[in-house]
């Protein structure tokens, strides 16, 4: 018996409202936190952080952001890459303009700037719905990338249009630039991802979250029971973009170190983040992490198996990888359209009832 709920009673609404109402879940959650914060930093190496952990955490933040918009508020967006670029370029401009201010503050402000831009591009959502809106968000994607490519002020007039992250420190430990220790890179990503997840969880389980979900499930009914659709949709766009902007800033400053709008924040980014939340589970914070993990780790594993283990030509492996990722997406949708999070939920329900199935 994995789950023992008997005797796990709640005596106040506060207790009933917490994120993990079941004690067992809560302990597991604390255990994962302890491992990630206290143990992993001492174990990680360069490859592990650069190839898996850092992209996983950063994509998780982007996925949380997009999940707020798409999973909770029901507005499909294909502009994630563009909004990540806003975060990256804002962060770059702030880093170079105010070198003495902490990078953490820059990243947060970059998120704020992205939130404003996101809200502006969210305006059409009041008139345009469904796939039309999804396609319309591509306008943001293409326009923003074009803008960052075109206006040299954004990349400080450098000859090539590349932006490079100079070295910045947190408590004298470098977190950007070439001399970052793997554990430092991991920790800053982890802290941002953790805080983002907690904030997103709080927002989505409260009044704002219900507003968004009401709009998602039935916008007309939501409006009639008193939800202001303008406020609901724009807040979803803004808050979603805030997280996406933070992930973009981290992606550029901490992870890549150098970036170019079209190359690093192209439409592929928009798609990959969308895959993450759909495979992970729409409307689930856990799903954002699960989807990001799957899509970051899967190609690495496939590559290890194909190229390093079987010794097949890398091109062939890359093609097979496409086939497998495509098949997996389809398989997931066929087996469980609501993603990994739903699979997890079902598994949990089964465990709770075990050994008495229904």
């Amino acid at each position, binding site marked *: 018996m994995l789950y023992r709920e008997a005797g796990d009673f709640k005596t106040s609404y506060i207790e009933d409202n917490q994120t993990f109402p079941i004690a067992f879940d809560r302990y597991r959650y604390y255990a994962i936190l302890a491992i990630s914060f206290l143990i992993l930093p001492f174990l990680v190496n360069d490859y592990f952080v650069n190839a898996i952990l850092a992209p996983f955490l950063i994509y998780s933040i982007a996925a949380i952001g997009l999940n707020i918009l798409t999973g909770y508020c029901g507005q499909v967006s294909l502009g994630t890459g563009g909004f990540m670029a806003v975060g990256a370029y804002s962060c770059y401009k702030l880093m170079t303009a105010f070198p003495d201010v902490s990078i953490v503050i820059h990243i947060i402000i970059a998120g704020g700037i992205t939130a404003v831009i996101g809200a502006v591009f969210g305006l059409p959502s009041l008139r345009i719905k469904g796939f039309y809106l999804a396609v319309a968000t591509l306008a943001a994607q293409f326009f923003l990338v074009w803008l960052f490519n075109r206006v040299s002020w954004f990349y400080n007039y450098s000859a*090539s249009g590349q932006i*490079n992250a100079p070295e910045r420190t947190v408590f004298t430990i470098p977190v950007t630039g070439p001399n970052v220790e793997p554990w430092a890179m991991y920790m800053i990503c982890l802290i941002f991802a953790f805080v983002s997840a907690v904030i997103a969880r709080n927002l989505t389980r409260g009044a704002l979250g219900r507003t968004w979900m009401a709009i998602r499930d039935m916008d007309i009914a939501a409006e009639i029971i008193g939800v202001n659709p303008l406020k609901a949709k724009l807040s979803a766009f803004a808050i979603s973009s805030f997280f996406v902007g933070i992930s973009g800033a981290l992606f550029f400053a901490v992870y890549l*170190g150098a970036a*170019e709008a*079209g190359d*690093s924040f192209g439409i592929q980014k928009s798609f990959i983040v969308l895959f993450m939340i759909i495979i992970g589970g729409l409307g689930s914070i856990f799903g954002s992490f699960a989807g990001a993990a799957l899509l970051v780790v899967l190609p690495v594993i496939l590559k290890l198996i194909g190229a390093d283990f079987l010794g097949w030509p890398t*091109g062939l492996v*890359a093609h097979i990888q496409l086939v497998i990722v495509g098949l997996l997406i389809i398989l997931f949708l066929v087996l469980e359209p609501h993603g990994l999070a739903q699979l997890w939920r079902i598994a949990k329900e089964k465990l709770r009832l075990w050994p008495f199935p229904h």
Partner: protein
Amino acid sequence: MKKTLFAAIAATLVSGAAMADLVFPSLSYRTGPFAAGGIPFADGYADYFTLLNERDGGIGGVPIKVIECETAYNTEKGVECYEATKGEGSLVYQPLSTGITYQIIPKASADGIPVHSMGYGRTSATNGRVFEWVFNYPTNYWNGASIAVKHILDLNDNDISGKKITLLYFNGAYGKEPIPTLEALSEKHGFEFNTLAIDFPGQEQKSQWLQIRRDQPDYILFWGWGVMNQVAVQEAANIRYPMENFIGIWWSGAEIDVLPAGDGANGYKSLQFHNVGSDFPIFDDIEKYVVDTGKAAGAGDQIGTVLYNRGVYAAMLAAEAVRTAQDIHNTADITSAMMRDGMEALTMTPERMAELGLPNFGPTFQVTCENHGGEGLGAIAQWDASATKWALVTDFIAPDDEVIMPLIEADSMAYAEENNLDLRCN
């Protein structure tokens, strides 16, 4: 199966350095929008090293191991490849993408592994006083722009004032590289300079070519990559632009770029920093030792194509740098730091190239502590559609250092200042 797989994964993650071989990571791209250009290069790169292993038993008796890693021309995958292979004792990185180069430069500098971006990447890395670990010999984009203009000067008895030159370019970091150089040159030579950008992927270039039709520039310089190349050549032929006045950079001058346009492409020119064609003794050896023994990386039908040759050339320069390093440090089993020394002392002479079975294959150049870019020579090749062959139509031309060196100085110094670097070579 499970266990061994797990071991393989663990091995990659922990990556204990096995120093027995000379390790060359090959960050190739055999998928994605630029696969068509990435495949022949990667094949050439691998085949040359295979040849050295098969024929000579490696370099200086030490066998060579090429670790290929697929980047799909994608910067994140490039970073992953770098991290996955750097612990294997990698001697030099050739990232094959300007984006990946920019990402790797700081990392590799911190890790002490040289980066060689041959004809791409960060141009100002030529300044060895700032960029200790980065090399971009034999030439770079700014040199390319200058060489193209020099060629135009040659065609016009050194007077091109009042002529119109338009740069048609990939709207991204790579395409924007030559703009400052061309602006400086336009000031110097008095030609009228315009730019036309094409966004990725560049399948639709109607408006750009209609503008060209309207503006009637005397020459078009072209910085394109991927499908953009094929479409541009096709559109130029369509509007009946005189193809001999249409000059592409070396990444826009392969067979695959001109073949789809058929006869229309006849006369199209491109810059090259190495020779073209399969008429070199080395290719007989590759046929004999690599293709015929079934060890070729590809189907073996790419030999002699421009991009295959470039892969061979890149591998050859790397191998020569290893030899130089072996001589300097008097050991066959070199490290990446020794590799850097070898690269910094690399000298390519006509004699040496002839010895290697590549007579007149590339320009002669010499790398020094201050100059990581060599002399920057390049040549012009022209496409003969009836023979379906590229051929060099000029000698290797030297760029206009008077214009380029100050630009390089300024850009590299800015980088040094931004990153608080001390200058070397004093």
